[in-house]
């Protein structure tokens, strides 16, 4: 039997089916896609003959893609000022442009995007870099506009973000190249000196004619030179610079070992007798550089920035000019202008509503889980999301003067204030350095008194074998592996010192919405609804944009929709229409029902009163102007929250909650998690959260999920962002968690940090032990080049294995 066949058979008999494009689980049996977006992409891909995409994806590590984001306008790319910032003119009238693609993640993505020249007229080349998540395209702007190109990429599921200079780090490129060159030189020098020393070591046993001995010794000395002078230069530089500031860095004993060993070995070669350790020296340089590179590489990849202020503020807006609305760049819009914001768009300015009604989601700024009603006279803030109605807004502030703009600015200015890495590992290295230096001096003096000829060689062998190699790798090796493993599971550690601060922290502050809760509304109570669920479902699906509708749809998902005669969406209020037998029917907010004076039976009224006193959102259904049933919706606890909070408590951590949502709502959530009122604070604006944290000492951790937490994250000792809708929180967070399981991901990271700390200690203990044994052997005069050549790489290998083999971020059951 064909294995593939039985697998598909198995899949069909399972009740869980997944979207053919994005592979998220489907709620009903007969659908093939989770949404219109996926269906569109699927058809687009097939119609272009690019179905190889799915074949390729099946063969590679299949992590589900995200759902297709709703289409947005790329019209701003047609503005010459903007396009000049992101593109480069090439000879023969072509343009080169770079985009950042946040949703790219696998081989199939690379394949389909590099096929663009074959499917789009005017695109002549396309090159993707998985490492940086960027695409470089060359196009002829006469045949295809940037706007069309961007829209097309979006339609394939890869919404492009213009890559301005801040995203392309030429500094990183320079550092990487520098590392690779130095490692290459060190490798060649090490390999060749090792070959020569192989012969030299043999010569101790079998003897060698003096002229060949001289040749090999001189050859080793010369070959080792580039490594010692050039490859190791970064060590000398950092040792010197930290020495000048009065601190002792681990690069100091490393530099001393290298320079002292090389010079005395050179002296030995000139004088013609004695042992030389050129191979150990070059091998030390090579291994240490490799460790540093691994650490730097892992760190810079974790830092890949998805910061996009472009995403938050639309770059253009529709301004009223005369009696029409005209698209204009944001810079040209001033206070007093009237802008039009359509449904599912972000509000571009701070202002007040002139006309129209809608629901506005301001969770970005306030963390409020419930959308608010907005109508003429109400104030709205830039960056918030307009859900379902059109609004005409009189502009008050734009750009950096909006509330959001100010928050973003404050994030930028605080960017550099990361805590310097004052690891205990460095402290230990400091003591180690001083001890080794002291010991070498003592060793030299003692041997000089006993047998002067041996004094120098023995001291040198002491320096070589206590090579800070194991010690120098103890931290970088484990940090590098931990960071890389973290990235693979979706934890992006932007600031490695956060990993050492995390296990030590005592106070853990949590945001509520989206962190402890799912951030989405779900039905928590209902009255009389059984008979009407099919109608409710039909009405809810008619206004699928609204969070309440989504929640009702999910609640009624096992019921077939009933047909309606007709329906009409009323922005900000609900859906109304006629049933198939001509009765009026509507589903919507309490306020709307009161406005229209719809009759509410007493038992439903009592339930409503009860729910409203708990600050839940309510939704009512009426038929023939009489309320027949009602629903209460609230933000529900994240499935893992209870478990994580209990686990933290058992670790004796202090748990506190800071939220922008109303105090009673936050208290309710806190209670269900066993947290007392005294440490719960609601109704907080982002800057107020920041102020609370500023008042604390440094051992705080703040876990949040959105931009409204960004300032708090910076103020805390460690700021952790769970994946939320807004990627800009990444800028402010020390650790960004996109594991897909919310707060559970945070707990795994905490455990990972503890494990890393344990491994670093293990490595340090081992290397100190090794050094004690090695030093003893050296002082006793037993260390020959052979022994040094074996022990040193062996100790490094053990440290590397000890760092690389463990799993740091295991999924706990």
């Amino acid at each position: 039997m064909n294995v593939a066949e039985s697998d598909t058979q198995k899949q069909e008999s399972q009740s869980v089916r997944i979207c053919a494009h994005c592979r998220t689980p489907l709620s009903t049996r007969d659908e093939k896609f989770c949404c219109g977006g996926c269906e569109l992409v699927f058809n687009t891909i097939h119609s272009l003959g690019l179905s190889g995409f799915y074949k390729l994806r099946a063969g590679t590590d299949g992590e589900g893609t995200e759902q297709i984001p709703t289409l947005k306008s790329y019209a701003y790319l047609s503005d010459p000022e903007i396009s000049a910032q992101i593109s480069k003119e090439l000879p023969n009238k072509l343009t080169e442009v770079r985009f950042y693609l946040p949703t790219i993640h696998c081989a199939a993505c690379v394949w389909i995007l590099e096929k663009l020249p074959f499917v789009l007229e005017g695109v002549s080349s396309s090159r993707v870099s998985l490492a940086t998540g960027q695409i470089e395209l060359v196009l002829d702007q006469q045949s295809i506009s940037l706007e069309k190109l961007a829209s097309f990429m979006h339609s394939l599921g890869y919404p492009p973000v213009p890559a301005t200079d801040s995203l392309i780090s030429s500094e990183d490129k320079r550092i990487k190249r520098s590392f690779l060159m130095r490692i290459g030189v060190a490798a060649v020098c090490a390999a060749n000196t090792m070959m020569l020393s192989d012969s030299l070591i043999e010569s101790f046993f079998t003897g060698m004619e003096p002229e060949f001995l001289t040749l090999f010794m001189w050859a080793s000395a010369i070959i080792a030179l580039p490594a010692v002078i050039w490859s190791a230069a970064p060590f000398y530089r950092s040792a010197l610079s930290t020495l000048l500031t009065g601190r002792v860095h681990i690069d100091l004993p490393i530099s001393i070992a290298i320079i002292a060993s090389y010079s005395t070995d050179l002296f030995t070669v000139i004088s013609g007798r004695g042992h030389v350790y050129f191979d150990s020296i070059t091998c030390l340089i090579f291994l240490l550089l490799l460790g540093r590179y691994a650490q730097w590489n892992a760190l810079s990849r974790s830092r890949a920035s998805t910061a996009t202020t472009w995403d938050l503020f639309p770059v253009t807006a529709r301004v009223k000019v005369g009696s029409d609305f005209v698209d204009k760049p944001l810079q040209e819009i001033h206070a007093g202008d009237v802008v039009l914001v359509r449904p599912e768009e972000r509000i571009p300015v701070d202002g007040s509503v002139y006309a129209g009604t809608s629901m506005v989601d301001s969770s970005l700024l306030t963390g409020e889980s419930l959308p608010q009603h907005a109508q003429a006279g109400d104030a709205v803030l830039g960056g918030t999301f307009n859900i379902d109605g059109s609004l005409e807004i009189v502009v008050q502030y734009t750009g950096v003067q909006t509330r959001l703009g100010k928050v973003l600015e404050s994030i930028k200015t605080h960017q550099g204030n990361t805590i310097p890495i004052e690891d205990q590992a460095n402290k230990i290295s400091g003591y180690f350095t001083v001890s080794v230096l002291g010991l070498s001096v003592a060793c030299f003096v003692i041997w000089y008194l006993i047998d002067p000829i041996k004094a120098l060689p023995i001291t040198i062998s002491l320096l070589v074998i206590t090579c800070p190699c194991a010690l120098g790798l103890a931290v970088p090796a484990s940090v590098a592996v931990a960071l890389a493993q973290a990235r693979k599971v979706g934890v992006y550690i932007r600031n490695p010192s956060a990993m050492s601060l995390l296990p030590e922290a005592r106070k853990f502050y949590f945001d509520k919405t989206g962190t402890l809760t799912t951030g989405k509304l779900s039905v928590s109570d209902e009255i009389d609804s059984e008979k009407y669920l099919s109608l409710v479902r039909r009405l809810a699906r008619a206004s699928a944009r609204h969070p309440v509708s989504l929640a009702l749809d999910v609640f009624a998902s096992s019921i077939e929709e009933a047909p309606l005669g007709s329906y009409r969406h009323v922005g900000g209020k609900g859906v109304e229409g006629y049933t198939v037998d001509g009765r009026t029917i509507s589903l919507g907010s309490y306020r709307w029902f009161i406005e229209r004076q719809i009759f509410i039976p007493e038992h439903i009224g009592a339930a409503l009163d009860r729910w409203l006193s708990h600050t839940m959102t309510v939704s009512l259904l009426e038929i023939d102007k009489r309320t027949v049933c009602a629903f209460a919706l609230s933000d529900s606890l994240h499935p893992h929250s209870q478990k994580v909070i209990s686990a933290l408590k058992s670790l004796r951590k202090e748990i506190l909650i800071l939220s922008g949502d109303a105090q009673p709502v936050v208290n309710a959530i806190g209670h269900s998690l066993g947290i007392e009122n005294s440490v719960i604070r609601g109704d907080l604006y982002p800057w107020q959260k920041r102020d609370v944290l500023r008042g604390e000492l440094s051992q705080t951790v703040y876990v949040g999920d959105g931009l409204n937490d960004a300032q708090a994250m910076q103020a805390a000792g460690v700021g952790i962002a769970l994946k939320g809708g807004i990627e800009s929180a990444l800028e402010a967070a020390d650790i960004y968690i996109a594991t897909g399981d919310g707060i559970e991901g945070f707990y795994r990271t905490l455990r990972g940090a503890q494990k890393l700390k344990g491994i670093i200690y293990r490595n340090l203990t081992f290397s100190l032990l090794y050094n004690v044994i090695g030093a003893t052997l050296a002082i006793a005069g037993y260390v020959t080049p052979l022994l040094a050549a074996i022990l040193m790489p062996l100790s490094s290998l053990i440290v590397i294995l000890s760092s690389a083999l463990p799993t740091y971020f295991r999924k706990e059951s």
Partner: protein
Amino acid sequence: MEIIFLLLPISVLFAFLALGAYLWSVRSGQLDDLETPAVRVLFDDDEQQ
């Protein structure tokens, strides 16, 4: 075995020539992206119809 006086410098020279080629490739940016080329190997050569 005196030939080693010739052979050794020559082999070292070759080693450094190879190193030179490596350094050139790093400087010209060929090793900037080590991840994507690994993935490109998976693509089939047949172009779509």
